[in-house]
Protein backbone atom coordinates (compact mmCIF):
# COMPACT_ATOMS: atom_id res chain seq x y z
CA UNK A 1 0.00 0.00 0.00
CA UNK A 2 2.98 2.29 -0.42
CA UNK A 3 1.28 4.20 -3.17
CA UNK A 4 1.87 7.88 -2.48
CA UNK A 5 1.26 8.62 -6.17
CA UNK A 6 -2.26 7.22 -6.31
CA UNK A 7 -5.30 8.40 -4.44
CA UNK A 8 -5.76 7.01 -0.91
CA UNK A 9 -9.33 5.79 -0.65
CA UNK A 10 -11.23 5.91 2.62
CA UNK A 11 -14.30 3.69 2.74
CA UNK A 12 -17.02 5.09 4.98
CA UNK A 13 -18.79 1.83 5.74
CA UNK A 14 -22.59 1.85 6.11
CA UNK A 15 -22.93 5.48 7.26
CA UNK A 16 -26.70 5.11 6.90
CA UNK A 17 -26.73 2.34 9.53
CA UNK A 18 -23.68 3.11 11.64
CA UNK A 19 -23.64 6.89 11.53
CA UNK A 20 -25.60 7.68 14.63
CA UNK A 21 -22.95 9.67 16.44
CA UNK A 22 -21.37 11.92 13.85
CA UNK A 23 -18.66 9.36 13.13
CA UNK A 24 -18.72 10.53 9.52
CA UNK A 25 -16.32 13.15 10.91
CA UNK A 26 -13.60 10.50 11.19
CA UNK A 27 -13.55 10.02 7.42
CA UNK A 28 -13.52 13.78 6.81
CA UNK A 29 -10.55 14.25 9.15
CA UNK A 30 -8.55 11.50 7.44
CA UNK A 31 -9.30 12.96 4.01
CA UNK A 32 -8.46 16.56 4.95
CA UNK A 33 -5.29 15.70 6.87
CA UNK A 34 -4.03 13.95 3.75
CA UNK A 35 -5.12 16.47 1.11
CA UNK A 36 -3.77 19.40 3.14
CA UNK A 37 -0.39 17.65 3.07
CA UNK A 38 -0.55 17.04 -0.65
CA UNK A 39 -1.57 13.37 -0.46
CA UNK A 40 -4.55 12.86 -2.78
CA UNK A 41 -7.40 11.20 -0.86
CA UNK A 42 -11.08 10.49 -1.36
CA UNK A 43 -14.03 9.24 0.68
CA UNK A 44 -16.05 6.36 -0.74
CA UNK A 45 -19.44 5.92 0.96
CA UNK A 46 -20.68 2.35 1.05
CA UNK A 47 -24.40 2.35 1.86
CA UNK A 48 -26.68 -0.35 3.16
CA UNK A 49 -27.68 -2.63 0.29
CA UNK A 50 -24.46 -1.97 -1.69
CA UNK A 51 -21.47 -4.34 -2.03
CA UNK A 52 -18.40 -3.45 0.05
CA UNK A 53 -15.28 -2.95 -2.11
CA UNK A 54 -12.07 -4.74 -1.07
CA UNK A 55 -9.80 -2.24 -2.80
CA UNK A 56 -9.87 0.66 -0.32
CA UNK A 57 -6.90 1.67 1.81
CA UNK A 58 -8.73 2.68 4.98
CA UNK A 59 -12.13 1.51 6.28
CA UNK A 60 -14.06 3.57 8.81
CA UNK A 61 -16.98 2.01 10.70
CA UNK A 62 -19.12 4.09 13.10
CA UNK A 63 -21.56 3.61 15.94
CA UNK A 64 -25.19 2.54 15.71
CA UNK A 65 -28.21 1.23 17.52
CA UNK A 66 -28.78 -2.48 18.26
CA UNK A 67 -30.98 -3.19 15.22
CA UNK A 68 -28.63 -1.31 12.93
CA UNK A 69 -25.69 -3.23 14.35
CA UNK A 70 -27.29 -6.61 13.63
CA UNK A 71 -28.11 -5.51 10.09
CA UNK A 72 -24.58 -4.24 9.58
CA UNK A 73 -23.08 -7.59 10.58
CA UNK A 74 -25.44 -9.37 8.20
CA UNK A 75 -24.52 -6.99 5.39
CA UNK A 76 -20.76 -7.18 6.01
CA UNK A 77 -20.95 -10.98 6.03
CA UNK A 78 -22.82 -11.07 2.73
CA UNK A 79 -20.33 -8.60 1.23
CA UNK A 80 -16.98 -9.42 2.91
CA UNK A 81 -14.89 -6.82 1.04
CA UNK A 82 -13.69 -5.14 4.22
CA UNK A 83 -12.60 -8.44 5.79
CA UNK A 84 -10.70 -9.37 2.62
CA UNK A 85 -9.00 -5.97 2.64
CA UNK A 86 -8.13 -6.33 6.34
CA UNK A 87 -6.55 -9.72 5.63
CA UNK A 88 -4.19 -8.10 3.12
CA UNK A 89 -3.27 -5.35 5.58
CA UNK A 90 -5.71 -2.50 4.92
CA UNK A 91 -6.28 -0.12 7.84
CA UNK A 92 -9.62 -0.47 9.67
CA UNK A 93 -11.06 1.88 12.30
CA UNK A 94 -14.08 0.60 14.24
CA UNK A 95 -15.92 2.91 16.63
CA UNK A 96 -18.34 1.82 19.36
CA UNK A 97 -20.60 -0.63 17.49
CA UNK A 98 -17.41 -1.30 15.49
CA UNK A 99 -15.56 -2.73 18.47
CA UNK A 100 -18.52 -5.00 19.23
CA UNK A 101 -19.19 -6.34 15.75
CA UNK A 102 -15.46 -6.78 14.92
CA UNK A 103 -15.04 -9.24 17.81
CA UNK A 104 -15.78 -12.97 18.02
CA UNK A 105 -19.20 -12.39 19.59
CA UNK A 106 -21.39 -9.83 21.31
CA UNK A 107 -24.12 -10.53 23.86
CA UNK A 108 -26.98 -8.06 24.23
CA UNK A 109 -28.96 -7.10 27.33
CA UNK A 110 -31.55 -9.74 26.31
CA UNK A 111 -28.74 -12.35 26.76
CA UNK A 112 -28.84 -13.32 23.09
CA UNK A 113 -25.32 -13.84 21.73
CA UNK A 114 -24.55 -12.80 18.16
CA UNK A 115 -21.52 -13.92 16.18
CA UNK A 116 -19.17 -11.06 15.28
CA UNK A 117 -16.93 -10.68 12.24
CA UNK A 118 -13.93 -12.22 14.00
CA UNK A 119 -11.53 -9.44 13.00
CA UNK A 120 -10.47 -8.83 16.60
CA UNK A 121 -9.78 -11.31 19.41
CA UNK A 122 -12.47 -10.03 21.75
CA UNK A 123 -15.94 -10.67 23.11
CA UNK A 124 -18.48 -8.05 24.18
CA UNK A 125 -21.50 -8.21 26.44
CA UNK A 126 -24.04 -5.73 27.82
CA UNK A 127 -22.98 -4.04 31.05
CA UNK A 128 -25.33 -3.20 33.90
CA UNK A 129 -25.29 0.54 33.29
CA UNK A 130 -24.85 2.71 30.26
CA UNK A 131 -21.45 4.44 30.19
CA UNK A 132 -22.03 8.07 29.19
CA UNK A 133 -19.55 10.93 29.43
CA UNK A 134 -16.11 12.30 28.68
CA UNK A 135 -13.20 9.84 28.54
CA UNK A 136 -9.48 10.48 28.95
CA UNK A 137 -6.98 7.64 28.46
CA UNK A 138 -3.23 7.13 28.02
CA UNK A 139 -2.25 5.44 24.72
CA UNK A 140 -0.83 1.93 25.27
CA UNK A 141 2.65 0.88 24.09
CA UNK A 142 3.54 4.44 23.03
CA UNK A 143 1.22 4.08 20.02
CA UNK A 144 0.95 7.86 19.74
CA UNK A 145 1.76 11.01 21.68
CA UNK A 146 -0.48 12.77 24.18
CA UNK A 147 -3.76 11.63 25.67
CA UNK A 148 -6.68 9.93 23.96
CA UNK A 149 -9.93 11.88 24.62
CA UNK A 150 -13.52 11.47 23.51
CA UNK A 151 -17.14 11.00 24.52
CA UNK A 152 -18.57 7.57 25.26
CA UNK A 153 -22.22 6.47 25.17
CA UNK A 154 -22.57 2.68 25.23
CA UNK A 155 -23.82 -0.24 27.26
CA UNK A 156 -21.33 -2.80 25.93
CA UNK A 157 -18.33 -4.08 27.87
CA UNK A 158 -15.48 -5.71 25.97
CA UNK A 159 -12.94 -8.34 27.03
CA UNK A 160 -9.80 -8.71 24.90
CA UNK A 161 -8.21 -12.07 24.08
CA UNK A 162 -4.43 -12.66 23.84
CA UNK A 163 -4.13 -11.60 20.17
CA UNK A 164 -5.59 -8.12 20.75
CA UNK A 165 -3.88 -5.33 22.68
CA UNK A 166 -5.66 -2.44 24.36
CA UNK A 167 -5.54 0.93 22.59
CA UNK A 168 -5.23 2.89 25.82
CA UNK A 169 -5.44 2.82 29.63
CA UNK A 170 -8.44 4.66 31.09
CA UNK A 171 -7.85 7.65 33.39
CA UNK A 172 -11.41 9.04 33.31
CA UNK A 173 -14.49 7.16 32.09
CA UNK A 174 -15.26 3.50 31.34
CA UNK A 175 -13.96 2.34 27.94
CA UNK A 176 -13.98 -1.47 27.55
CA UNK A 177 -14.25 -2.28 31.25
CA UNK A 178 -13.23 0.72 33.36
CA UNK A 179 -9.55 -0.12 32.99
CA UNK A 180 -8.57 -0.37 29.33
CA UNK A 181 -10.06 1.25 26.25
CA UNK A 182 -10.28 -0.01 22.67
CA UNK A 183 -8.31 -2.67 20.85
CA UNK A 184 -5.47 -2.95 18.35
CA UNK A 185 -4.76 -6.04 16.30
CA UNK A 186 -2.44 -5.61 13.34
CA UNK A 187 -3.80 -2.61 11.47
CA UNK A 188 -7.30 -2.94 12.88
CA UNK A 189 -7.96 -0.36 15.56
CA UNK A 190 -11.12 -0.09 17.65
CA UNK A 191 -12.40 2.38 20.22
CA UNK A 192 -15.57 3.19 22.15
CA UNK A 193 -14.92 6.91 21.76
CA UNK A 194 -17.06 9.34 19.79
CA UNK A 195 -16.52 13.05 19.63
CA UNK A 196 -15.91 11.98 16.86
CA UNK A 197 -12.62 10.39 17.88
CA UNK A 198 -10.30 11.57 15.07
CA UNK A 199 -11.10 15.32 15.21
CA UNK A 200 -10.40 15.11 18.94
CA UNK A 201 -7.21 13.01 18.49
CA UNK A 202 -5.20 14.14 15.44
CA UNK A 203 -2.21 11.97 16.47
CA UNK A 204 -4.42 8.90 16.16
CA UNK A 205 -5.65 10.10 12.75
CA UNK A 206 -2.05 10.53 11.61
CA UNK A 207 -1.09 7.09 12.93
CA UNK A 208 -3.80 5.53 10.74
CA UNK A 209 -2.66 7.59 7.74
CA UNK A 210 0.98 6.52 8.28
CA UNK A 211 -0.11 2.89 8.45
CA UNK A 212 -2.03 3.29 5.20
CA UNK A 213 0.55 5.27 3.23
CA UNK A 214 3.76 3.97 4.74
CA UNK A 215 5.08 7.55 4.76
CA UNK A 216 6.19 9.65 7.69
CA UNK A 217 3.89 12.67 7.87
CA UNK A 218 4.93 16.30 8.27
CA UNK A 219 3.44 17.97 11.36
CA UNK A 220 0.10 19.72 10.83
CA UNK A 221 -0.72 22.37 13.38
CA UNK A 222 -4.39 23.29 13.68
CA UNK A 223 -4.79 25.82 16.53
CA UNK A 224 -8.50 25.03 17.03
CA UNK A 225 -7.68 21.34 17.53
CA UNK A 226 -4.91 22.09 20.04
CA UNK A 227 -7.26 24.42 21.94
CA UNK A 228 -10.05 21.85 21.93
CA UNK A 229 -7.79 19.10 23.30
CA UNK A 230 -6.68 21.33 26.15
CA UNK A 231 -10.28 22.36 26.89
CA UNK A 232 -11.67 18.83 26.96
CA UNK A 233 -8.83 17.43 29.10
CA UNK A 234 -9.36 20.27 31.57
CA UNK A 235 -13.14 19.68 31.60
CA UNK A 236 -12.50 16.01 32.42
CA UNK A 237 -10.27 17.10 35.32
CA UNK A 238 -6.94 16.00 33.80
Amino acid sequence: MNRPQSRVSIALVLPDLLGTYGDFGNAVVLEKRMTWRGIPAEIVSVNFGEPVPDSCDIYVVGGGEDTAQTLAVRHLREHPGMQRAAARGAVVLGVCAGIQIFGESFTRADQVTHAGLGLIDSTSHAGGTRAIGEVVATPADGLFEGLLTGFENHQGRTVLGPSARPLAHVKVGTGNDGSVEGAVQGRILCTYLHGPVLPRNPQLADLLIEWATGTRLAPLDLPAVTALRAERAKAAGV
Partner: protein
Amino acid sequence: MSSKLSQKMGLGAGGMIGGRVALRLDPQALAHLTSGRSVALVTGTNGKTTSTMMLSRAVSHLGPVATNHGGANMPDGHVTALSKQPDAPYAVLEVDEGYFPEVCRASAPAVAVLLNLSRDQLDRVGEVRTIEKSLRTALAGVPGVVVANCDDIMVTSAARDARRVVWVATGTGWHNDAASCPRCGDPIRWQGEHWQCTGCDLARPRPDWVTGDGFLITPRGEKVGLALRLPGKFNQANAVMAVAAADALGVPVPEAVERLRAVSNVAGRYRTIQRSGHRARLLLSKNPAGWSETLTVVREADHPAVLVINAHEADGRDLSWLWDVPFERLRGRQVIASGERATDLAVRLTYAEVEHTIVPDPLQAIDAMPPGAVEVIANYTAFRDLNARAAQ
Protein backbone atom coordinates in the same frame (compact mmCIF):
# COMPACT_ATOMS: atom_id res chain seq x y z
CA MET B 1 -59.93 16.79 43.44
CA SER B 2 -59.70 18.72 40.22
CA SER B 3 -61.61 21.71 41.52
CA LYS B 4 -59.90 21.51 44.90
CA LEU B 5 -56.56 21.51 43.14
CA SER B 6 -57.54 24.41 40.89
CA GLN B 7 -58.66 26.35 43.94
CA LYS B 8 -55.39 25.60 45.64
CA MET B 9 -53.49 26.66 42.57
CA GLY B 10 -55.52 29.82 42.06
CA LEU B 11 -54.89 31.25 45.54
CA GLY B 12 -54.67 34.96 44.78
CA ALA B 13 -52.33 36.73 42.43
CA GLY B 14 -48.84 35.24 42.54
CA GLY B 15 -50.13 32.40 44.72
CA MET B 16 -49.74 29.85 41.92
CA ILE B 17 -48.27 26.57 43.02
CA GLY B 18 -45.74 25.32 40.48
CA GLY B 19 -46.61 22.34 38.34
CA ARG B 20 -43.91 20.21 39.91
CA VAL B 21 -45.34 20.72 43.40
CA ALA B 22 -48.88 20.11 42.16
CA LEU B 23 -47.82 16.80 40.62
CA ARG B 24 -46.27 15.76 43.91
CA LEU B 25 -49.47 16.63 45.76
CA ASP B 26 -51.59 14.83 43.20
CA PRO B 27 -49.90 12.44 40.73
CA GLN B 28 -53.17 12.36 38.78
CA ALA B 29 -53.15 16.15 38.38
CA LEU B 30 -52.66 15.93 34.62
CA ALA B 31 -55.60 13.54 34.19
CA HIS B 32 -57.81 15.72 36.38
CA LEU B 33 -56.82 18.95 34.71
CA THR B 34 -57.42 17.60 31.19
CA SER B 35 -60.67 15.79 31.98
CA GLY B 36 -63.67 17.41 30.29
CA ARG B 37 -61.48 19.38 27.86
CA SER B 38 -60.81 18.73 24.22
CA VAL B 39 -57.05 18.08 24.18
CA ALA B 40 -54.54 18.27 21.32
CA LEU B 41 -50.95 17.07 21.89
CA VAL B 42 -48.01 18.02 19.65
CA THR B 43 -44.77 16.05 19.61
CA GLY B 44 -41.78 15.31 17.37
CA THR B 45 -38.11 16.24 17.23
CA ASN B 46 -38.35 19.65 15.58
CA GLY B 47 -41.04 22.32 15.25
CA LYS B 48 -43.02 21.46 18.39
CA THR B 49 -43.11 24.95 19.87
CA THR B 50 -43.98 26.64 16.57
CA SER B 51 -46.67 24.09 15.65
CA THR B 52 -48.18 24.26 19.13
CA MET B 53 -48.43 28.02 18.89
CA MET B 54 -49.96 27.80 15.40
CA LEU B 55 -52.47 25.17 16.49
CA SER B 56 -53.47 27.03 19.67
CA ARG B 57 -54.07 30.20 17.60
CA ALA B 58 -56.20 28.25 15.15
CA VAL B 59 -58.21 26.48 17.86
CA SER B 60 -58.90 29.80 19.61
CA HIS B 61 -61.48 30.28 16.86
CA LEU B 62 -63.61 27.75 18.77
CA GLY B 63 -63.06 29.11 22.29
CA PRO B 64 -60.47 29.74 25.01
CA VAL B 65 -57.37 27.52 24.81
CA ALA B 66 -54.97 26.50 27.58
CA THR B 67 -51.48 26.05 26.15
CA ASN B 68 -47.83 25.83 27.23
CA HIS B 69 -46.15 28.56 25.17
CA GLY B 70 -42.42 28.68 25.31
CA GLY B 71 -41.26 25.10 25.42
CA ALA B 72 -42.07 23.94 29.01
CA ASN B 73 -43.04 20.61 27.49
CA MET B 74 -42.84 18.13 30.37
CA PRO B 75 -45.74 17.19 32.70
CA ASP B 76 -44.99 19.90 35.27
CA GLY B 77 -45.17 22.49 32.48
CA HIS B 78 -48.50 21.02 31.34
CA VAL B 79 -49.98 21.17 34.84
CA THR B 80 -48.87 24.79 35.21
CA ALA B 81 -50.36 25.77 31.83
CA LEU B 82 -53.64 23.94 32.44
CA SER B 83 -54.17 25.31 35.94
CA LYS B 84 -53.62 28.86 34.69
CA GLN B 85 -56.72 28.45 32.55
CA PRO B 86 -58.97 26.02 34.41
CA ASP B 87 -62.06 27.00 32.43
CA ALA B 88 -60.66 26.83 28.89
CA PRO B 89 -62.57 24.06 27.06
CA TYR B 90 -59.58 23.40 24.77
CA ALA B 91 -55.99 22.48 25.58
CA VAL B 92 -53.13 22.45 23.06
CA LEU B 93 -49.97 21.03 24.62
CA GLU B 94 -46.43 20.68 23.32
CA VAL B 95 -45.05 17.38 24.65
CA ASP B 96 -41.44 16.18 24.92
CA GLU B 97 -41.09 12.90 22.96
CA GLY B 98 -39.87 11.04 26.03
CA TYR B 99 -42.91 12.05 28.11
CA PHE B 100 -45.46 11.57 25.33
CA PRO B 101 -46.69 8.07 26.40
CA GLU B 102 -47.33 9.28 29.96
CA VAL B 103 -49.08 12.50 28.89
CA CYS B 104 -51.07 10.65 26.25
CA ARG B 105 -52.40 8.13 28.79
CA ALA B 106 -53.34 10.87 31.24
CA SER B 107 -55.06 13.20 28.77
CA ALA B 108 -56.89 10.92 26.27
CA PRO B 109 -56.32 13.42 23.44
CA ALA B 110 -58.86 14.21 20.73
CA VAL B 111 -55.89 14.94 18.43
CA ALA B 112 -52.23 13.89 18.59
CA VAL B 113 -49.80 15.50 16.15
CA LEU B 114 -46.52 13.76 15.29
CA LEU B 115 -44.31 16.11 13.27
CA ASN B 116 -41.00 14.31 12.59
CA LEU B 117 -38.43 12.07 14.29
CA SER B 118 -34.67 12.31 14.01
CA ARG B 119 -31.56 12.09 16.15
CA ASP B 120 -31.51 14.60 18.99
CA GLN B 121 -29.60 14.58 22.25
CA LEU B 122 -28.63 10.92 22.09
CA ASP B 123 -27.20 11.01 25.61
CA ARG B 124 -30.47 12.27 27.13
CA VAL B 125 -33.38 11.36 24.87
CA GLY B 126 -31.98 8.09 23.53
CA GLU B 127 -31.84 6.63 20.07
CA VAL B 128 -34.50 7.32 17.46
CA ARG B 129 -35.66 3.75 17.08
CA THR B 130 -36.34 3.42 20.80
CA ILE B 131 -38.44 6.62 20.73
CA GLU B 132 -40.30 5.39 17.65
CA LYS B 133 -41.30 2.16 19.40
CA SER B 134 -42.58 3.92 22.53
CA LEU B 135 -44.57 6.42 20.44
CA ARG B 136 -46.00 3.56 18.37
CA THR B 137 -47.48 1.97 21.51
CA ALA B 138 -48.75 5.31 22.83
CA LEU B 139 -50.37 6.38 19.54
CA ALA B 140 -52.20 3.05 19.21
CA GLY B 141 -54.06 4.06 22.39
CA VAL B 142 -55.09 7.55 21.22
CA PRO B 143 -58.91 7.68 21.30
CA GLY B 144 -59.08 10.51 18.75
CA VAL B 145 -57.25 11.36 15.53
CA VAL B 146 -53.50 11.10 14.92
CA VAL B 147 -52.11 13.70 12.50
CA ALA B 148 -48.84 12.40 11.09
CA ASN B 149 -46.17 13.35 8.53
CA CYS B 150 -46.11 10.61 5.87
CA ASP B 151 -42.83 11.90 4.38
CA ASP B 152 -41.06 10.79 7.55
CA ILE B 153 -40.48 7.03 7.73
CA MET B 154 -40.11 6.90 11.52
CA VAL B 155 -43.31 8.93 11.98
CA THR B 156 -45.22 6.70 9.58
CA SER B 157 -44.15 3.59 11.42
CA ALA B 158 -45.07 5.14 14.78
CA ALA B 159 -48.51 6.33 13.63
CA ARG B 160 -49.64 3.53 11.34
CA ASP B 161 -51.27 1.35 14.03
CA ALA B 162 -53.40 4.20 15.43
CA ARG B 163 -57.20 3.99 15.17
CA ARG B 164 -57.60 6.98 12.86
CA VAL B 165 -54.71 8.68 11.08
CA VAL B 166 -54.75 11.83 8.98
CA TRP B 167 -51.62 11.79 6.80
CA VAL B 168 -49.89 15.02 5.83
CA ALA B 169 -47.30 15.23 3.05
CA THR B 170 -44.96 17.89 4.40
CA GLY B 171 -42.16 17.47 1.88
CA THR B 172 -39.72 17.42 4.78
CA GLY B 173 -37.95 14.62 6.51
CA TRP B 174 -34.47 13.72 7.74
CA HIS B 175 -33.67 10.45 5.99
CA ASN B 176 -30.29 9.75 7.58
CA ASP B 177 -31.87 7.85 10.47
CA ALA B 178 -34.09 5.71 8.31
CA ALA B 179 -32.03 3.80 5.76
CA SER B 180 -33.37 0.60 7.22
CA CYS B 181 -37.00 -0.09 8.01
CA PRO B 182 -37.99 0.53 11.66
CA ARG B 183 -40.33 -2.47 11.40
CA CYS B 184 -38.24 -5.20 9.75
CA GLY B 185 -34.76 -3.74 9.20
CA ASP B 186 -34.61 -4.16 5.43
CA PRO B 187 -33.50 -1.24 3.22
CA ILE B 188 -35.99 1.50 2.36
CA ARG B 189 -36.24 2.34 -1.33
CA TRP B 190 -37.14 5.86 -2.52
CA GLN B 191 -38.75 6.71 -5.84
CA GLY B 192 -39.31 10.45 -6.09
CA GLU B 193 -41.46 11.35 -3.10
CA HIS B 194 -42.69 7.80 -2.62
CA TRP B 195 -40.83 5.40 -0.36
CA GLN B 196 -41.35 1.77 0.57
CA CYS B 197 -39.61 -0.95 2.49
CA THR B 198 -38.06 -3.70 0.39
CA GLY B 199 -38.80 -6.31 3.06
CA CYS B 200 -42.27 -5.63 4.51
CA ASP B 201 -45.42 -3.66 3.74
CA LEU B 202 -44.34 -0.37 5.37
CA ALA B 203 -44.71 2.29 2.66
CA ARG B 204 -45.61 5.94 2.30
CA PRO B 205 -49.34 6.22 2.90
CA ARG B 206 -51.50 8.24 0.52
CA PRO B 207 -51.53 11.77 1.96
CA ASP B 208 -54.79 13.45 2.97
CA TRP B 209 -53.18 16.91 3.07
CA VAL B 210 -50.36 18.14 0.84
CA THR B 211 -47.86 20.94 1.50
CA GLY B 212 -46.87 22.96 -1.55
CA ASP B 213 -44.50 25.89 -1.85
CA GLY B 214 -46.61 28.64 -0.25
CA PHE B 215 -49.90 26.73 -0.24
CA LEU B 216 -51.68 23.65 1.05
CA ILE B 217 -54.16 21.27 -0.50
CA THR B 218 -56.98 20.00 1.72
CA PRO B 219 -58.43 16.46 1.66
CA ARG B 220 -61.32 18.00 -0.30
CA GLY B 221 -58.86 19.14 -2.97
CA GLU B 222 -59.04 22.88 -2.17
CA LYS B 223 -55.86 24.89 -2.63
CA VAL B 224 -55.29 27.48 0.13
CA GLY B 225 -52.47 30.05 0.14
CA LEU B 226 -50.28 30.12 3.27
CA ALA B 227 -48.41 33.48 3.09
CA LEU B 228 -46.68 32.83 6.43
CA ARG B 229 -44.58 35.43 8.21
CA LEU B 230 -42.19 32.71 9.47
CA PRO B 231 -39.43 31.69 7.04
CA GLY B 232 -38.53 28.34 5.56
CA LYS B 233 -40.02 25.19 4.18
CA PHE B 234 -40.18 23.55 7.61
CA ASN B 235 -42.49 26.29 8.92
CA GLN B 236 -44.82 25.65 6.00
CA ALA B 237 -44.78 22.00 7.06
CA ASN B 238 -45.53 23.02 10.67
CA ALA B 239 -48.42 25.18 9.44
CA VAL B 240 -50.04 22.43 7.38
CA MET B 241 -49.75 19.96 10.27
CA ALA B 242 -51.42 22.57 12.52
CA VAL B 243 -54.23 23.23 10.00
CA ALA B 244 -54.90 19.49 9.61
CA ALA B 245 -55.08 19.14 13.41
CA ALA B 246 -57.35 22.20 13.74
CA ASP B 247 -59.59 20.78 11.02
CA ALA B 248 -59.89 17.54 13.02
CA LEU B 249 -61.10 19.62 15.99
CA GLY B 250 -63.67 21.39 13.81
CA VAL B 251 -61.97 24.68 12.87
CA PRO B 252 -62.81 25.77 9.30
CA VAL B 253 -59.64 25.77 7.16
CA PRO B 254 -59.75 29.47 6.10
CA GLU B 255 -60.14 30.54 9.76
CA ALA B 256 -57.29 28.29 10.86
CA VAL B 257 -54.91 29.56 8.15
CA GLU B 258 -55.76 33.19 8.82
CA ARG B 259 -55.01 32.84 12.52
CA LEU B 260 -51.71 30.98 12.25
CA ARG B 261 -50.53 33.25 9.44
CA ALA B 262 -50.19 36.02 12.06
CA VAL B 263 -47.52 34.12 14.02
CA SER B 264 -44.25 35.99 13.55
CA ASN B 265 -42.15 35.22 16.60
CA VAL B 266 -42.25 32.04 18.64
CA ALA B 267 -40.75 32.46 22.10
CA GLY B 268 -38.20 34.85 20.64
CA ARG B 269 -37.35 32.66 17.65
CA TYR B 270 -37.09 34.39 14.27
CA ARG B 271 -37.24 37.79 15.88
CA THR B 272 -34.78 40.46 14.81
CA ILE B 273 -32.92 42.52 17.38
CA GLN B 274 -31.34 45.91 16.70
CA ARG B 275 -27.91 46.24 18.23
CA SER B 276 -24.91 48.48 17.58
CA GLY B 277 -25.82 49.06 13.95
CA HIS B 278 -26.76 45.42 13.38
CA ARG B 279 -30.05 43.78 12.57
CA ALA B 280 -29.54 40.34 14.05
CA ARG B 281 -32.10 37.64 13.28
CA LEU B 282 -32.22 35.02 16.05
CA LEU B 283 -32.71 31.44 14.88
CA LEU B 284 -32.92 28.36 17.10
CA SER B 285 -31.56 25.00 15.92
CA LYS B 286 -31.03 22.07 18.23
CA ASN B 287 -29.99 19.04 16.20
CA PRO B 288 -28.69 18.03 12.75
CA ALA B 289 -32.12 18.06 11.06
CA GLY B 290 -32.91 21.49 12.53
CA TRP B 291 -29.51 22.96 11.61
CA SER B 292 -29.77 21.57 8.12
CA GLU B 293 -33.13 23.36 7.63
CA THR B 294 -31.84 26.60 9.15
CA LEU B 295 -28.73 26.59 6.95
CA THR B 296 -31.15 26.40 4.01
CA VAL B 297 -33.08 29.42 5.30
CA VAL B 298 -29.94 31.55 5.75
CA ARG B 299 -28.85 30.60 2.25
CA GLU B 300 -31.50 32.98 0.88
CA ALA B 301 -29.06 35.86 1.52
CA ASP B 302 -25.32 36.01 2.03
CA HIS B 303 -25.37 37.71 5.44
CA PRO B 304 -22.60 37.06 7.96
CA ALA B 305 -23.44 34.36 10.48
CA VAL B 306 -22.79 33.94 14.19
CA LEU B 307 -23.11 30.29 15.28
CA VAL B 308 -23.59 29.72 19.00
CA ILE B 309 -23.08 26.31 20.64
CA ASN B 310 -23.48 25.24 24.27
CA ALA B 311 -23.52 21.70 25.68
CA HIS B 312 -25.52 21.74 28.89
CA GLU B 313 -27.76 18.84 29.85
CA ALA B 314 -30.74 20.41 28.03
CA ASP B 315 -28.61 20.64 24.85
CA GLY B 316 -27.04 17.21 25.17
CA ARG B 317 -23.50 17.02 26.49
CA ASP B 318 -22.13 15.13 23.49
CA LEU B 319 -21.36 17.44 20.56
CA SER B 320 -20.61 14.64 18.06
CA TRP B 321 -23.74 15.76 16.19
CA LEU B 322 -21.90 18.86 14.94
CA TRP B 323 -20.33 16.51 12.37
CA ASP B 324 -23.79 15.60 11.02
CA VAL B 325 -24.51 19.26 10.18
CA PRO B 326 -23.55 20.34 6.63
CA PHE B 327 -21.56 23.43 7.71
CA GLU B 328 -19.70 23.14 4.39
CA ARG B 329 -22.61 25.18 2.99
CA LEU B 330 -21.24 28.26 4.79
CA ARG B 331 -17.98 28.30 2.79
CA GLY B 332 -17.16 31.80 1.58
CA ARG B 333 -19.35 33.52 4.16
CA GLN B 334 -18.17 35.56 7.12
CA VAL B 335 -18.61 33.30 10.15
CA ILE B 336 -17.96 33.63 13.89
CA ALA B 337 -17.95 30.57 16.17
CA SER B 338 -19.48 31.47 19.52
CA GLY B 339 -20.92 29.99 22.71
CA GLU B 340 -19.42 28.01 25.56
CA ARG B 341 -18.32 25.29 23.13
CA ALA B 342 -17.09 27.62 20.37
CA THR B 343 -13.86 25.61 20.19
CA ASP B 344 -15.67 22.37 19.28
CA LEU B 345 -17.48 24.28 16.56
CA ALA B 346 -14.22 25.87 15.38
CA VAL B 347 -12.71 22.42 14.84
CA ARG B 348 -15.76 21.36 12.83
CA LEU B 349 -15.59 24.56 10.73
CA THR B 350 -11.83 24.08 10.19
CA TYR B 351 -12.39 20.66 8.67
CA ALA B 352 -15.39 22.00 6.69
CA GLU B 353 -12.96 24.62 5.27
CA VAL B 354 -15.15 27.46 6.47
CA GLU B 355 -13.04 30.48 7.46
CA HIS B 356 -14.04 31.80 10.85
CA THR B 357 -12.96 33.57 14.01
CA ILE B 358 -13.86 32.70 17.60
CA VAL B 359 -15.74 35.11 19.90
CA PRO B 360 -17.24 33.10 22.80
CA ASP B 361 -19.73 35.81 23.90
CA PRO B 362 -22.54 35.88 21.28
CA LEU B 363 -23.45 39.57 21.81
CA GLN B 364 -19.81 40.54 21.35
CA ALA B 365 -19.76 38.29 18.29
CA ILE B 366 -22.68 40.25 16.77
CA ASP B 367 -20.86 43.52 17.58
CA ALA B 368 -17.72 42.20 15.85
CA MET B 369 -19.57 41.81 12.53
CA PRO B 370 -19.75 44.60 9.93
CA PRO B 371 -22.90 46.75 10.39
CA GLY B 372 -26.09 45.48 8.77
CA ALA B 373 -27.90 42.15 8.75
CA VAL B 374 -26.50 39.23 10.78
CA GLU B 375 -27.92 35.72 11.10
CA VAL B 376 -27.50 34.28 14.59
CA ILE B 377 -28.09 30.53 14.89
CA ALA B 378 -27.94 29.09 18.39
CA ASN B 379 -28.73 25.80 20.06
CA TYR B 380 -31.11 25.49 23.00
CA THR B 381 -29.52 26.99 26.11
CA ALA B 382 -27.37 29.31 23.99
CA PHE B 383 -30.53 30.66 22.36
CA ARG B 384 -32.40 30.94 25.67
CA ASP B 385 -29.57 32.90 27.32
CA LEU B 386 -28.98 35.12 24.30
CA ASN B 387 -32.70 35.89 24.04
CA ALA B 388 -32.89 36.82 27.73
CA ARG B 389 -29.81 39.06 27.49
CA ALA B 390 -31.01 40.68 24.26
CA ALA B 391 -34.32 41.54 25.97
CA GLN B 392 -32.53 43.50 28.72
